[in-house]
């Protein structure tokens, strides 16, 4: 009988009785209804604006393309012809780059898809000066003048002027001009299917992953940038920032910059604020100098780039992470990394960082440092510099780091220095630097306490563009303190990118294991014998599994005794599945579906073999790798290693593998077992699975190992 037929047997009265029994009031979380409505309306308007406006770009796409059938004999000729056609296309971007070199002023319109009805924003921008006019139905409603120091915004309707200090987002236009002037053809991929024709105009479209080049693009979730170039004039027509739809099936434009050519020079006067004399003027208070001056490191040879040291972390192994904020020429000046691939995303050569460590940036007391890595955040205004004390000063993580460094005089608090003053001082007078000393308190950390995103930024494979794009997106969200968005962004990436990301996460996580000397090794051998002794009485093993292949929200907890196993799978503290196994059968209950699967057990249950392995523990199998200490300096774990995992069936035994065992020094009990595989590069190791043993409560009742599920669950037997 089908479900429908079963349901037809219910009378109205029976259904009413069931309604009374099962009815539950449901209230959506506060605010959800309104926020979703806003999003749905926005999407609705966006679709309408796309559908209604006969966009010239869309019109091209509607033109049916003729289907070409090339006779076999003409194939070679077609290939030659294609090459001939493509050659000028490839050269087109080079021509654009050439043409843009002479451009001083950029004139364009900006359309923000998510904000229809906000009018048209028209911009004139020069290197660090911009005039913006907002019009609604051809009538100017607002004007803004921006330079490197301030923004003056005149709201015509309110007859009000607001003056405030320049922010990064105000300088988007300067960056856009800079970007077009330094256009690198090799960054772009041609999108031939999108080529559109409009009689007299013909466009070529190029695509590149969004690289966080501009503030808006970096912050708006844009993942792809398209550049439309007019074939006849070799000038950029428009630049679109695209974002994947919620389903991830297609990319939709979020921001569109439409360039208005030919480009006449704008009169000087256009960049001067003009508003009526009787207007109300509000000037936002000037930024108050920080109580403690932000330390500035001057590491560039020409003295024109400054870096503020914002935070420092040091771990027990002497690994130091510094968060640095770039201050100086960008976005006014040229981003040097665009020209030099050896540079980091935030514009400094590694060699310069090394020099900084050995030269202007020095430590008190003097200590040798070893450069580890560096990485940057998407808008290139901050980066992480990671190095290692070698050895640790005084043998333990210092509470403070003492540096010598160069400081621009105007930044000193007693001089009332502000950031913009500083930038001007640096640009105009490099000699304004002076030697200064400072100390910054360190924040002790253990490896697991540091956000993985920082490590992810290290030694990026620059050839993997989707990968770096993903990483930068994640970092951007992380910087904006939105880990959920970072995760969301991560989900938008394809499997290849995720695979790479996972690989780098595993390979670049620094270890805080301190190598031990031979004297400690002897002591460790004693501990291992004690461990083996402790293991002999263990009947029940209780442990948790984590593995990179599993969703981070998923937690697997297992109890194992003899040949009996109970496994609980949780998501966000909710049990979603349970499994019982012994040497004969396997029972899995999927709670959400109220379904049970029963199947015969394959030989070699992994959980069972781990119990066996724990009981047969042999100290001689293991090589002492070192010890990991806690933040207070006390010994916590002995770390041991042995090649291969063949002793634990169920894990991959083929290929190059190794196991690492953490033994707790106070209890002599194994803390965790980490199984690693050789990475595809053959150089590094990646973690395959971690078994964390839970010794506090390892007594489970016999009934625990008996399958329990509701009688109405659907049972499938294999």
């Amino acid at each position, binding site marked *: 009988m089908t479900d*429908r037929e079963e349901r037809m047997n219910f009378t109205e009265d029976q259904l009413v009785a069931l309604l009374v029994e099962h*009815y539950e009031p*449901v209230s959506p979380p506060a605010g959800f209804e309104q926020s979703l409505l806003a999003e749905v309306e926005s999407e609705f308007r966006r679709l309408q604006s796309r*559908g209604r406006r006969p966009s010239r770009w869309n019109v091209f796409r509607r033109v049916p393309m003729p289907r070409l059938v090339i006779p076999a004999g003409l194939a070679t000729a077609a290939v030659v012809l294609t090459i001939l056609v493509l050659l000028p296309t490839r050269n087109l971007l080079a021509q654009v780059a050439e043409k843009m070199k002479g451009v001083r002023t950029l004139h364009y319109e900006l359309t923000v898809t998510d904000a229809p009805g906000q009018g048209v924003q028209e911009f004139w921008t020069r290197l660090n000066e911009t005039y913006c006019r907002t019009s609604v139905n051809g009538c100017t409603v607002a004007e803004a003048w921006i330079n490197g120091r301030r923004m003056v915004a005149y709201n015509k309707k309110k007859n009000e002027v607001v003056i405030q200090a320049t922010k990064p987002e105000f300088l988007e236009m300067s960056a856009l001009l800079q970007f077009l002037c330094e256009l690198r053809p090799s960054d772009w991929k041609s999108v031939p299917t999108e080529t559109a024709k409009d009689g007299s105009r013909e466009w070529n479209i190029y695509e590149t992953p969004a690289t966080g080049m501009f503030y808006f693009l970096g912050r708006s979730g844009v993942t792809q940038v398209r550049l439309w170039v007019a074939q006849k004039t070799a000038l950029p027509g428009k630049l679109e920032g695209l974002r994947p739809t*919620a389903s991830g099936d297609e990319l939709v434009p979020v921001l569109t910059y439409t360039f208005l050519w030919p480009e006449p020079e704008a009169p000087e006067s256009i960049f001067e604020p003009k508003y009526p004399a009787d207007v109300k003027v509000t000037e936002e208070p000037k930024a108050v100098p920080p109580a403690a001056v932000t330390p500035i490191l001057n590491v560039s040879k020409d003295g024109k780039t400054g870096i503020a040291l914002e935070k420092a972390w040091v771990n027990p192994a002497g690994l130091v992470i510094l968060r640095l904020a770039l201050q100086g020429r960008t976005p006014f000046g040229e981003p040097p990394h665009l020209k030099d691939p050896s540079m980091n995303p935030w514009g400094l050569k590694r060699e310069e960082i090394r020099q900084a460590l050995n030269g202007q940036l020095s430590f008190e007391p003097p200590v040798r440092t070893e450069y580890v890595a560096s990485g940057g955040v998407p808008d290139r205004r901050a980066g992480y510099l990671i190095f290692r004390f070698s050895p640790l000063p005084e043998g333990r993580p210092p509470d403070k780091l003492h540096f010598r460094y160069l400081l621009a005089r105007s930044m000193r608090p007693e001089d009332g220095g502000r950031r913009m003053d500083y930038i001007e001082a640096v640009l105009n007078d490099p000699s304004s630097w002076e030697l200064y000393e400072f100390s910054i308190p360190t924040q002790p950390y253990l490896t697991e306490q540091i956000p993985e995103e920082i490590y992810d930024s290290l030694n990026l494979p620059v050839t993997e563009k989707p990968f770096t794009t993903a990483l930068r997106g994640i970092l951007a969200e992380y910087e904006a303190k939105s880990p959920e968005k970072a995760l969301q962004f991560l989900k938008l990436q394809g499997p290849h990118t995720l695979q790479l990301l996972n690989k780098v996460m595993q390979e670049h996580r620094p270890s805080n294991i301190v190598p031990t000397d031979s004297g400690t090794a002897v002591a460790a051998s004693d501990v291992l014998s004690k461990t083996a002794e402790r293991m002999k009485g263990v009947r029940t093993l209780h442990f948790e599994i984590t593995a990179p292949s599993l969703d981070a929200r998923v937690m*697997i907890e297992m109890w194992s005794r003899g040949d009996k196993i109970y496994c609980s799978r949780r998501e966000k503290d909710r049990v979603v599945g349970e499994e019982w196994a012994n040497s004969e059968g396997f029972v899995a209950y999927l709670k959400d579906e109220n379904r049970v*699967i029963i199947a015969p057990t394959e030989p070699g249950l992994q*959980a069972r073999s781990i119990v066996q392995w724990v009981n047969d523990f042999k100290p001689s199998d293991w090589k002492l790798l070192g010890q990991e200490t806690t933040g207070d300096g006390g010994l916590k774990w002995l770390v041991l290693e042995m090649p291969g995992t063949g002793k634990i069936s169920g894990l991959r035994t083929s290929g190059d593998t190794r196991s690492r065992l953490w033994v707790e020094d106070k209890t002599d009990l194994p803390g965790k077992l980490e199984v690693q595989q050789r990475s595809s590069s053959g150089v590094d190791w990646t973690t395959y699975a971690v078994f964390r043993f839970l010794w506090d409560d390892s007594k489970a009742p016999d009934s625990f190992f008996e399958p329990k599920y509701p009688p109405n669950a659907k049972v499938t037997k294999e």
Partner: protein
Amino acid sequence: MNYDRGLAKRLKEGETTALQELYSATFAPLYRFAYFQAQGDHEVAQEIVHDAFLEAVRSISNYLPDKGSLQAWLCGIARNRVRALRREQDSERKAVRSLAASRPAEQTVVETDKPDMRVSINAALALLPNTYSDVLIQKYVKDKSVREIATETGQTEKAVESLLSRARAAFRESFTADGESHD
């Protein structure tokens, strides 16, 4: 159904007030529907409702008034989203099983969408027009008399009785039709 036809027409023409009308009429029942499909998980329910509304505005041209109300159409979209989520969860479970114990990789997973009675009843209620679901709840869950309902809603007792009768029949129809979607 004429109302739905008119509303859909206005939506296709890009009328924002039509969208607001649809939203205010269907948000609560759709959320109820999603909530029970998601086994009482508010986070998942929000995700389902979010995706359903966005999908609806994108594909309003696919709506066929002859096949049912806009509310039922939205619930259909939500149901498809639930199935997609289940498929994702299934693939996760496979990974867990292969890790938990050595098992054959090619496990036959029998898909079952058959929900329990609690889900079925609440889903059938969510598929009803608000006037029907409201009167059923007032009468049977809150145990109010026909007279009380008539006073509160400003209708005659006769009209309420008639409404109740139609609501009960619609509830049974909705319950049966929902079962069809699981077959």
